[in-house]
């Protein structure tokens, strides 16, 4: 009980303190409020204090980051929205908290279902952001978003998202998940080529 352990421990604290300022000097002007600085402070090389000052600075969201699903639509040549969703209902079946509701469209003449949802709702109060809907969607029609700043004043009115609120263009999807998008497009192109080859062979 000579207090040496405490003094050594305080040495560690002192080192952190000094390190923080040394880093500030070393990365003068670049350590804060720049993308480079945030990247540096979230890497294994960082030293000293590495708090990121939200909301002035934000952590860089990795591509796989998932928060609240959205529906992907293709933009037609005249700017019309073409849903990728075929209302097959797999997302609604796989959803653990069961927060997805889908109503199918029926052909007004024949009464047969059309592969396009009439209504699509997600109760984002219940959604647990597990990502199963996006993972098991066979048409790449529902994906997880990167937007996490969703607070509202009135949850009862605003937190059931309808189809309009959920839909986002495919270009947005490509911008937040470039690698996944490229991989899916490649698979789609290969499949289309294989289909064409089969057709030609017949």
């Amino acid at each position, binding site marked *: 009980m000579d207090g040496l352990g405490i003094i*050594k*421990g305080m040495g*560690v604290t002192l080192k952190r303190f000094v390190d923080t300022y040394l880093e500030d000097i070393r990365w003068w002007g670049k350590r804060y409020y720049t993308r480079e600085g945030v990247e540096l402070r979230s890497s294994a090389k960082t030293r000293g204090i590495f708090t990121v000052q939200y909301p002035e600075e934000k952590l860089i969201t990795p591509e*796989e980051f998932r928060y609240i699903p959205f529906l992907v639509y293709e933009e037609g040549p005249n700017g019309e929205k073409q849903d990728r969703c075929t209302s097959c209902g797999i997302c609604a079946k796989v959803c*653990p908290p069961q927060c*997805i509701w*889908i109503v199918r469209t029926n052909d007004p003449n024949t009464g047969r279902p059309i592969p396009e949802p009439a209504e699509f709702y997600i109760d984002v109060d219940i959604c647990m952001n*597990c990502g199963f809907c996006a993972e098991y969607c066979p048409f790449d029609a529902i994906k997880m978003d990167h937007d996490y700043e969703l607070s509202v004043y009135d949850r009862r009115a605003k937190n059931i998202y309808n189809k309009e609120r959920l839909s986002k263009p495919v270009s947005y999807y490509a911008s937040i998940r470039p690698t996944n998008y490229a991989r899916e497009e490649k698979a789609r192109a290969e499949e289309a080529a294989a289909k064409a080859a089969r057709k030609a062979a017949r």
Partner: protein
Amino acid sequence: MSEQTLVAEDIIKTRFGEAVEADGRKGYEGYLVKREKLVEVATALRDEFGYDYLSSVTAVDYLPEDKIEVVYHLFKSTGGPSLVIKVDAPRENTSVPSLVPVYPGAELQEREAWDLMGVKFEGHPDLRRILMWEGFAGHPLRKDWREAYFEEEGKPFKSRWPDGHVYRIEDKNPFAKNVDYPAGFDPESWVPEGEAALYAGMGAVDVGSNLRTDHVVVNLGPQHPSTHGVFRMVVTLDGETILKLKPVMGYLHRNHEKIGERNTFLQNMPFTDRLDYLSSMSNNFGYALAVEKLMGIKPPERAEYLRVIMAELTRISNHIFAIGMFLNDLGAYFTPALYAIQERELILDIFEAVSGSRMMCNYFRFGGVARDLPEGVLEKIRSLVVDRLPRKVDELDLYLTNNEIIRARGEGVGVLTPEQAIAYSAAGPVLRASGVPYDIRRADPYSIYDRFEFDVAVRYHGDVYDRYLIRMDEMRQSLRILQQAVRDLPEGPIQEGKPQYQVRVPAGESYGRVEGPKGELGYYIVSNGKANPWRYHVRAPSFINLTALETMAVGDKIADAVAILGSIDIVLGETDR
């Protein structure tokens, strides 16, 4: 059935004769024991066969057969596979002899089975509700009990698709409908009986002194910064010395197991994240193992390595956080905690890049993992486990281990002897700090842990300080495993077969257990071949480690109770489930 188990079966048959009968149902294991012989058989299994560690007690409601079955998982504290014994009881006036006299570790678990399943344990010293509130009507895990807002027996609910329409569940079924109250219930005049029973049990203790001093009963919590959530310790004090202590919990109870039985097998995966929310990857691991055992599949090589990497990173992040928060409990307010959180943050960044979420990872799938490592992540993991974390663990060691205040507060406080630790079914760091080198990764290896070189960390004093030291040791061992796993990570597929959302799980039972950061995390699953599990039980280490809390705390000062609780490292999400 292998030859070895046949021999074991013969021995058990000869020893107990009529009292036991091998469980012959397809997909089931273990022995059915006659109700009146249970205590005798359990005592013999403990004393003659060496099954001294009662890991899990739970009950299954076989509604179609009109019976309730209590299931016990016994292990040897020297390692090896389980011995499962079961006792049948009728659904009306269900009662089974209590095993608390044989295995004190059954205390909280039997209370849980009484509370949720309505099994009366004859001879239990303190059979009160534990997770539900006093005055609650019914036993919610019974198959004929229905919750408020009940929709259907199993998901997916038909109302969602294709002709469902959006509604808020609370609008559809307003509160108070579908909720049962006991006959003649009046909230104004109601006095919770359990509470009275609790305080009655805390009354005067004869301390054998001639001084006539009054004893004081004090509630620590439920709102108290030292309880890491909402948890209550009721203590009887003689001056500052603790004479009795009772843990009170269930404030965060959400009946995870009932939710799990409504879910499909896959849908349970993200719910396991929310048990011990500091180590979701380990929770996923145990559940995936239990279901894979039933399905009879094994993940491919690369997935096994990824699983081990994630589980060990989780252990480090959990232990470093536990140490930080433990220092908070000792009064070193937040500086050590934040140093620890910084390192944890870097690990969480990896989880986020791999699984998409920092804490609710939902990364494991049956027969594999959700996705491969994105580009650059392996490099990040390598730089962490080879370079940064070993340095930081050493730094933490230098920072805290020889600190005189920590030693004074920790050494010789809250002692749990090895015999007590085994008897109270303590698990994980609590068990190993008491000198029992029991680590499931070595004692009953799962996944690919038999390939790695590491030591089972063990400390021998069983006090608060050793429980701190053991976490330091375990982080170092985890780093060793990680360095090997990162080095040997093979290329290849990460999922056995095609990913599918409706898995076929054959009828039967299975118990999957992993060495979670807090101790043995087990999942007991009964399937009847349908889409939803018939029974889904979690053996939660945080919950069961609390059984030994009273033993550790009695005789110490009231300020030490805070340190002792901090050294057990509980997470209320898992304790209350």
